[in-house]
């Protein structure tokens, strides 16, 4: 027998579940089932025309010990993450700090910096291919005017990754906007007190701004990291992994395995390794930043 109170509580749970039912369906069908299925596939040999055949940890062994392309893709991706995430973050923060100086034309500048980050990547990738064309691109002209040697950018294995990193920094506007919102919330009094103590601009930035926005720095770093590990479209459009596999990134190689070579089991093992790497790195960042991140009111 249910007491009236219990019954009311249950009814409320029912109402709540009805409202969130679209998410429940989505969670089961688009997250939970695929995660489990993906793990199962990773233990099988599986092409779309045959059914999955269980082979234990063979895919993982092969990836880690016998696939030089996988190691190449992994190191390329780590290279990209290590440079693109901090550089994009720093540029975004620098832009936000500059915009926060109450300069004239704030909304114009904000638009200019933000816009590239919401434009379709396919279109901007094609634009950058042309922008960095070794002979006819605008950047080549500027380099020549400055008396600098010509660079082949996307067709030079040494320069292809830096070129892609440069392009990713161009798309950092969304991060800038988040930083700007955070900066506007830092109480002015803190700066005034620091000024009274004769603090320089750098010291104010280092000892007032950075601690006050540290949760946002952490947020942007983690979101940036997860995104950078899944870097795909630009490499697919601009370089297709070349030259000499120098831009064969993790997601690109995963995609090729799944949809060009139809090695669904092998690609699933790659996906699970990626998932683990992201989880572990996020955990490490959270842990190591715990002492340095300052939360208001705690």
């Amino acid at each position, binding site marked *: 027998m249910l007491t009236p109170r219990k019954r009311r509580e249950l009814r409320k749970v029912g109402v709540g579940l009805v409202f*969130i039912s679209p998410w429940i369906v*989505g969670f089961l069908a688009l997250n939970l089932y695929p995660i489990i299925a993906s793990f199962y596939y990773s233990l099988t040999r599986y092409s779309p025309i045959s059914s999955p055949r269980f082979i234990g940890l063979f895919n993982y062994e092969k990836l880690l010990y016998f696939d030089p392309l996988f190691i190449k893709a992994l190191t390329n991706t780590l290279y990209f993450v290590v440079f693109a995430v901090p550089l994009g973050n720093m540029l975004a923060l620098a832009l936000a700090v500059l*915009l926060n100086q109450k300069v004239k034309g704030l909304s114009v500048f904000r638009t200019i910096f933000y816009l*590239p980050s919401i434009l*379709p990547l396919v279109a901007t990738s094609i634009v950058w291919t042309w922008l960095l064309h070794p002979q006819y691109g605008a950047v080549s002209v500027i380099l020549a005017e400055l008396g600098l040697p010509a660079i082949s950018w996307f067709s030079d294995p040494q320069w292809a990754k830096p070129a892609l990193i440069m392009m990713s920094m161009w798309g950092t506007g969304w991060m800038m906007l988040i930083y700007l919102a955070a900066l506007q919330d830092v109480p002015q009094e803190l700066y005034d007190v620091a000024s009274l103590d004769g603090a320089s601009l750098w010291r104010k930035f280092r000892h007032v701004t950075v601690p006050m926005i540290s949760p946002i720095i952490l947020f942007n770093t983690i979101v940036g990291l997860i995104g950078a590990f899944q870097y795909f479209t630009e490499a697919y459009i601009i370089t297709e992994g070349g030259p000499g596999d120098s831009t064969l990134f993790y997601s690109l190689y995963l995609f090729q395995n799944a949809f060009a070579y139809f090695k669904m089991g092998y690609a699933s093992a790659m996906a699970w390794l990626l*998932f683990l790497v992201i989880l572990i790195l996020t955990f490490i960042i959270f842990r190591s930043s715990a002492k340095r991140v300052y939360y208001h009111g705690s």
Partner: protein
Amino acid sequence: MIASFGVKRANINNIVSFVLLVGLSAAFILPLFWMITTSLKPIDQLLLDPPVWIPEPLEFENYPNALEAQPFLQYLGNSLQIAVAAVIGAIISNSLVAYGFSRVEWKGRDAVFVLVLSTLMLPYHVVMIPLFVSFSKIGWVNSWLPLIVPAWLGHPFFIFMLRQFMLGIPKELSEATRIDGGSEWILLTRVILPLCKPALATVALFQFIWSWNDFIGPLIYLNDRDLYPMSLGLALYHNSQGITDFSILMAASTMAVVPIIIIFFFMQRVFIQGISLTGLKG
């Protein structure tokens, strides 16, 4: 004396900031400037060494030529249909779900909400292959359904944003309606949602941009040229072209980019607002 010195310092800082911003803006604009001028170059000015910055005369014919080279108008129309269908779904589903996570009090709600947020961490690649397998089993491959239906099932980012917004609406408002005998449904549609317009506008905008820009989804699911959205059509056209077609390619890229720029300019305030709505501010 001290005061005027302070003002001067502030002025100098301001001037330095302004000069830096102008320089950086020039760098940020360069790719788009290069796209537009190239899209207006006659073929004989495309491959000059050194290149010309602004062509003379401007070749507007590149745009009709681009439309002839590929059914770009159809691609644009497809993108628009997919994006609008996804936006409608995102508004409906995320409103319902966010309401259930903010205005209805039930046991276990906050624990489930943590689960919602945790799915943000999940890389797309983990679910990509099983989703493809499932969607092909139910015959959805080579249709827009895999691109649209997921938007009708809520997204953690939007749920979070709308929930934060709904939590900010005073509880008393709900109590009043409940005492009048109104159901939760009436409460949601007549009271809460009208108050959530700015947050809903942000959801609509972001979903539109995501759908418009999505590339890997269409790449995986669509085979039929008639179904291609702009992103996929443009990518395949790019892969099949040589260097002499760059003015046409830039014209096509401009057409893919302009709708987003127009939307941005009309709804700039919503965009900027969206960032603070996420609750990231503090």
